[in-house]
């Protein structure tokens, strides 16, 4: 038995997406850049996929560039805006403390090149306020980049309002929508978004493919040189099978956003309710302004990696923001950004749902987490110190 609750890491491909890919792995193998009929067949498929993806985002096809995934799209968006800014002497960029590392590490690189980066703090509820962005914009700001929904705690940001402020102040606005695309309604025009990154494998599409939306007028720079593909903005023969899979997956996901959200948020709320019964536990991020499938808790007195491995033994695939799972000495920067102290952040658990999960699985998971937390607390010197009163609880 396996209960997969790590859909923010990656999702299982949908049947529709797999079926959409198969002909392009098999019979339709032409290179879209070739002038012969086999190439043109592939070129037509590529155009068709681009239009369908654009339609899901509310933009024309020519504003979509295919990339290898969300990270590449983030890198290209940020570096392009930075280069364009530098040409006008604008070298200030605004972002938030809890972005994905694809954004934060790209900005670190720019800092080393002389750019100045303002990291906006995040409120404990995991939401950045549009006023914070407004206050941080300066004469020399060339880019604001704020994620659509956080990958760890699932909180949804006020994208339209932030986009509106950027538009008014003449600053380019990019959003990393990797966790949001296919799960929340997106309309880039209505939401004042200049650039947006997405990744197919987060909405039941294939891995290794993503897209960058860039509004007409936004100057894009190629990260990969070597050909005229993607209007010269991304060289390399297009990954047609993956692109076809992504188009099918996004269309399918966008066609059932409301239905999926209703189902997932009901399961999510059951899971939150069940886990809240564990003493000295706390939900990370706002309870309602969060992705329909995201649950993230901290449990005091235990460490997240051992919790994950115990759950894995019980057939549950989950994730944690503990240092041991991040491969560094610090726990998740997202949990630290919302004010969780190290001691607590090490004991975090992220469970992210998909449409395939059932109520029975949720009930089983609640029981399994309760047992595992209790077991680990039973051998934890921290827990002993807490319950004996030697040390004060951080989570009341």
């Amino acid at each position, binding site marked *: 038995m396996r209960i997969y609750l790590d859909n923010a890491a990656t999702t299982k491909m949908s049947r529709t997406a797999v079926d959409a890919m198969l002909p392009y792995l098999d019979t339709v193998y032409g290179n879209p850049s070739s002038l012969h009929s086999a190439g043109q067949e592939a070129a037509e498929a590529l155009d068709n996929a681009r239009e369908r993806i654009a339609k899901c985002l509310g933009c024309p096809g020519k504003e979509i560039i295919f990339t290898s995934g969300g990270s590449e799209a983030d890198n290209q968006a940020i570096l392009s805006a930075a280069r364009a800014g530098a040409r006008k002497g604008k070298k200030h960029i605004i972002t938030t403390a809890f972005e994905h590392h694809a954004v934060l590490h790209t900005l670190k690189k720019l800092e080393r090149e002389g750019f100045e980066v303002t990291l906006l703090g995040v409120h404990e509820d995991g939401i950045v306020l549009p006023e914070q962005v407004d206050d941080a914009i300066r004469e020399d700001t060339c880019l604001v980049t704020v994620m659509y929904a956080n990958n760890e705690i699932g909180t949804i940001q006020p994208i339209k309002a932030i986009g509106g402020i950027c538009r008014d102040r003449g600053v380019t606005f990019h959003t990393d929508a990797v966790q949001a695309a296919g799960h929340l309604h997106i309309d880039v025009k209505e939401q004042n978004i200049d650039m947006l990154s997405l990744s197919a494998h987060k909405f039941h599409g294939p891995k290794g493919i993503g897209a960058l939306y860039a509004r007409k007028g936004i100057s894009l720079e190629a990260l990969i040189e070597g050909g005229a593909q993607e209007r010269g903005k991304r060289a390399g023969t297009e990954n047609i099978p993956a692109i076809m899979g992504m188009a099918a997956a996004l269309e399918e996901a966008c066609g059932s956003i409301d239905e999926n959200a209703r189902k997932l948020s009901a399961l999510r709320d059951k899971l939150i309710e069940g886990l809240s019964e564990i003493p000295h536990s706390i939900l990370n991020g706002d309870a309602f302004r969060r992705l329909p499938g995201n649950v993230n808790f901290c449990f005091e007195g235990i460490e997240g990696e051992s919790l994950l491995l115990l759950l894995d033994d019980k057939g549950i695939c989950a994730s944690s923001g*503990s240092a041991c799972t991040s491969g560094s000495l610090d726990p998740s920067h997202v949990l630290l950004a919302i004010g969780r102290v190290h001691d607590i952040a090490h004991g975090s658990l992220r469970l992210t749902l998909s449409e395939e999960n059932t109520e029975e699985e949720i009930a089983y998971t609640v029981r399994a987490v309760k047992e595992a937390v209790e077991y680990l607390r039973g*051998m934890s*010197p921290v827990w002993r110190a807490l319950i004996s009163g030697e040390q004060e609880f951080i989570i009341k």
Partner: protein
Amino acid sequence: MALYSEKVMEHFRHPRNVGVIENADGIGEVGNAKCGDIMKIYLKIEDGIIEDAKFETFGCASAIASSSMATELIKGKPVSEASALTNKAVAEALDGLPAHKVHCSVLAEEAIKKALQDYYGKLSEGV
């Protein structure tokens, strides 16, 4: 390849010597919650022999497995042997640890050394 050896997983799933020794002859606690690892080792020592060893650990699977293995390695051994236990010996007995988890075996060595220091301290106070 799995993250951990079978031996690590076995000791994580079925840790030996979990618990507390009341009126222990030596107690050693190392690490801190900020870093995500705390190990506490309790020793019962009679006639220079480690009669019993128990542990409590807050930490990842390799920290729990290292505590379990380290207590197994010193039980029944003379104090002199226990104080010579190295993190390398703990890691080897677990069929190795991933590079970024070697510090867990270091914590186990340090916790035992600290518990023995506590024991010697108590001995000299008693004299």
